[in-house]
């Protein structure tokens, strides 16, 4: 199935750009929607023989070396869901038809890049797809060509390029140790020459490059600017999956299937995760801008994922993978809400909001759900993933990390409660009396994502058995 997810959108875009303009502009939205929906469905229903057989033939024709395992499946679902949300939000926020067409084209290339990242099994191809995703997102951030967007895009570009250079250096050095760059070969060669000076050096560079891509503290400088300055639909994409696919998923994958969980790597990951959790949460407390607060909260939540993955145990990785999914959903939801606020209030400055839950009931209610899930309140999905991570930390004897991880979710609650009070409760500021709920596209997306959050929490046993347990087979 795997190459379908790359080739169909690729040929699709080429075809779209060859069609006459009027047709292409109308068809683009539906084509993209179909691609993303198909991506979700293919990732969820990945077993039936018909698909597999037909798709295997397709794969072998193009001889693309993709493979989809359970971790990739989870990521593919995230990518599909978040891209779809971004697309729907873009439809209602980008009004100009021509601009919308360009936007959808780049959105599709971005999603090709991300799908590629989660399916490749070769470290150099991984780099190629990372660049595809990153280059698309630079254009997307700068899409409106306002000065803030350009500034955010430039900072992201520079930092991301530095990360790329680090990773390429690492790949080049690893080539001294391995005849090719496939994950399996590299894994064997690295395991063979563990403790070697130059190889360790290369591993360190690669991990740090991924830290930059994932926006972990103290590599996070670009992240709040990029998230805040990007147009609303792009923020959804960036915060929901982009940095997760580029940095976090890749880190989990590379460490698990190439570098191996050695103690120094585990300690580094857990330490960086912990710092990210704390700094992100504390920084979020001091924000006055809705989107910027969400950006810092993203850093903090990503810290949880890395903390969980850094345990190197099954439970930790399962928790990390599930938190990755949850984070994509609830942070996507919050950014959809921020798009609604931006559209209606005209700003994302929280000091100019208040009492909006009366005027925008759907937006208010869904953001409460997202907030509770992010803070890990049962029975929402965020609770389960955090629980798994904390249990994993406990099992390997890192009691202090476990305790701080729990306490930090109080901090999460604190800044979200502050945000709720600033935005949704309290008194309506003058000038907003005539405010109405955002359009159907936004509210429907928000409601759908909220349903997923609640549903994933309630159906956790099902998810655990069908999506998380198979992770055991890849990693162990």
């Amino acid at each position, binding site marked *: 199935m795997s190459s379908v997810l790359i080739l169909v959108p690729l040929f699709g875009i080429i075809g779209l750009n060859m069609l006459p303009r009027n047709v292409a502009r109308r068809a683009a939205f539906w084509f993209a929607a179909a691609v993303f929906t198909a991506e979700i469905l293919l990732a969820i229903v990945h077993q039936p023989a018909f698909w597999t057989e037909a798709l295997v033939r397709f794969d072998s024709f193009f001889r693309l070396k993709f493979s989809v395992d359970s971790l990739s499946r989870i990521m593919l679902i995230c990518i599909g869901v978040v891209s779809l949300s971004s697309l729907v939000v873009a439809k209602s926020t980008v009004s100009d038809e021509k601009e919308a067409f360009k936007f959808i084209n780049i959105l599709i290339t971005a999603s090709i890049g991300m799908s590629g990242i989660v399916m490749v099994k070769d470290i150099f191809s991984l780099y190629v797809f990372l660049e595809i995703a990153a280059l698309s997102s630079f254009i997307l951030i700068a899409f409106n060509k306002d000065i803030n967007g350009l500034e955010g895009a430039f*900072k992201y570009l*520079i*930092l991301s390029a*530095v990360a790329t250079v*680090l990773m390429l250096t690492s790949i080049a050095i690893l080539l001294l140790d391995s005849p090719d760059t496939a994950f399996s070969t590299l894994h064997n060669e690295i395991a063979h020459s563990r*403790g*070697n*000076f130059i190889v*360790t*050096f290369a*591993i*360190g*560079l690669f*991990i*740090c490059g991924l*830290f*930059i891509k994932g926006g972990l503290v*103290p*590599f*996070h*400088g*670009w992240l709040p600017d990029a998230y805040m300055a990007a147009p609303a639909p792009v923020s959804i994409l960036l915060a929901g999956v982009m940095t997760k696919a580029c940095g976090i998923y890749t880190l989990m994958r590379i460490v698990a299937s190439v570098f191996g969980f*050695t*103690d*120094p*790597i585990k300690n*580094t990951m857990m330490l960086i995760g912990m710092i990210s959790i704390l*700094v992100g*949460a*504390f*920084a979020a*407390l*001091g924000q006055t801008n809705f989107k910027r607060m969400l950006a810092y909260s993203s850093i903090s939540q990503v810290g949880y994922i890395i903390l969980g993955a850094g345990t190197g145990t099954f439970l930790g990785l399962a928790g990390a993978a599930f938190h990755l999914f949850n984070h994509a959903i609830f942070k996507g939801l919050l950014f959809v809400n921020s798009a609604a606020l931006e559209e209606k209030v005209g700003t994302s400055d929280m000091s100019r909001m208040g009492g909006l839950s009366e005027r925008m009931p759907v937006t208010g209610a869904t953001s409460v759900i997202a907030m*509770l899930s992010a803070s890990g*309140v*049962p*029975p929402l999905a965020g*609770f389960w993933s955090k*629980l798994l991570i*904390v*249990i994993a930390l*406990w*099992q390997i004897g890192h009691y202090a990390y*476990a*305790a701080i991880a*729990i*306490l930090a979710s*109080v901090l999460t*609650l*604190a800044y979200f*409660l502050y945000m709720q*009070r600033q935005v949704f*409760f*309290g*008194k309506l500021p003058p000038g907003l009396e005539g405010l109405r709920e955002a359009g159907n596209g936004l509210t429907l997306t928000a409601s759908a994502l909220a349903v997923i959050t609640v549903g994933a929490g309630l159906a*956790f*046993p099902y998810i*655990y*058995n069908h999506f998380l*347990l198979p992770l055991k087979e890849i990693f162990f």
Partner: protein
Amino acid sequence: MNMLLLPILIPIASAIIVLLLPKSAKLLRDTVTLLSTFANALLAIMLFNKEILVSYPWVGFGFEFSLRLYNFSSFIMAAAASFGFLIALYSSAFTAAKNYSKSFFVYLLISLALLNGAVLSNNLLLMLFFWEALLITQFGMIMLGGRLAFRTATKAFVIIGASDLCMMVGIAIYGFSSGSFAFSNNMPLAGLGGLAFVLLMIGAIAKAGSMPFHSWIPDAAIDAPLPVVAMLPGALEKLLGIYFLTRISLDMFRAETGSWVSYLLMIVGSITILFAVMMALVQKDYKRLLSYHAISQIGYMVLGIGTFVPVGIVGGLFHMINNSMYKCCLFLTGGAVEKQAGTTNLEKLGGIGSKMPVTFACFLVTALAISGVPPFNGFFSKELVYDGALERGWIFYLAALVGSFFTAASFLKLGHAAYLGKADKDRKDVKEAPYQMLIPMVLIALACILFGVYNKLPIKFLIQPVLGVDRLRGHNYWGFPPNFILAIISVVVLAGAFLNHIYGVKKTGSGLKAVDHIYHAPVLSEIYDAQAKGYLDPYNIGLGFLNIFSIAASWFDKAVDWFYNVFSVKTAALLTNASRRLQNGNYKTYIILSMATTVLIVLFLLRSV
């Protein structure tokens, strides 16, 4: 479909129905709510004292959806279901004119379902699920009080949430060090076990509202709608918290008399009794005064259970059910007064006793019960607690006794100021409350008398089975208190409280100011001052700390600048001039930070080579 799923599904289903009904369909809504709460109560009584176990596979590694009904859980469920029905009946009149009526009923039904679920759960993780969800309904219910209630709701949420986190950690420790999340592990208290016990205990007593997790309750009493207060801190949360405390102490841990956790519990109990009652004494608001008593009474239960001797535990549990009854009823009378007289400020009330005779009678009965006057139920449970406390140390007994003195004094003051004395000019034409509100109060008041006069009924059928034959060793605790001398002393203390009241009234000429001489006593007055300014409120103290942290955090990015602008200037002389030129370029800061950390990480990894 198993019978045990019904207590969870019935309220949830009717909550959904109520939610879907339009806001204007008041009669239908009331009917649905009353029917379903009644059905729930009936079901709880039908299931009473049965032993049923259901189990569905759920997550794996020992997380099962497993429910168990036995004497204790059926007892708590029946009590909660009865309160649920009565409060629903009461609220159908009380909230009639309020626009939050619909949301309140939804929350009430969901809370009932969750409570049933929590009580029935047969393992800790499942219980945690229901327990935490109650936190959300609690938040929502307090929020019903309007805009001002947000602060209180947040406060409650943070306090309970934080203590629940402790409980989660406790459950994790318990589960992993004893090997299963079942309730019956009899884990020893040494080492990690002790830590687990304390963490779980924090969760339990915070839910019950004991000190130092109490400070949201008085605020909620003012800000939240009255039925919410009567239901959650008044009845359901106490039942649940004490239920869990008992389960911890009796089933989960091998807690022995004389162990340090026993002393810890007794100290927490004694302090709660004393401090809360002292605060109650000086309140000038009907509901706020009651709310402090709601805290104080928890102290008796924690003290009773903390003795770890059978008589104390029986007393604590008996006190739990008694207290839920009379405290619920007292709050309901407060609601009746609020609705009919328009205020609960004691300075404005007075002389309404003759205008609301039924309410007054109910108040009288329950006030006597809470003060521990024979032959009402409170007397008997307190005597049992006294007995247990004395067995463990006279100091705890003394604390309980002093608490009893002040309880009586404050209720004399309350009754005097609210119901007797001269009527206020503006409240000449106060009428008796509607019958939907009276029925629950009267029923509960009658039950208070019944449980007192015929205390064999609750003790024999409800409480003693919880402890089991092994622990009781053939003792039976019904009938007249076992220790006659203690009963005499209690009566003398009550008489003292009465004399004190008369002295105060003589001195100040007003029922409201009858206890002011205590308020102005040398040391106490300073404590009262500090409390009034909020210095003693743990929540405020915590908030202060958090503030400091958040200031520190908002300076983080400036600290990064400092690192770049100041630190590097001093360390790297070569870069001095260049860095000054670069200080405004922000993304450069990020690059420098990233590269510096990269070097550190690479060095760290190379260290092991």
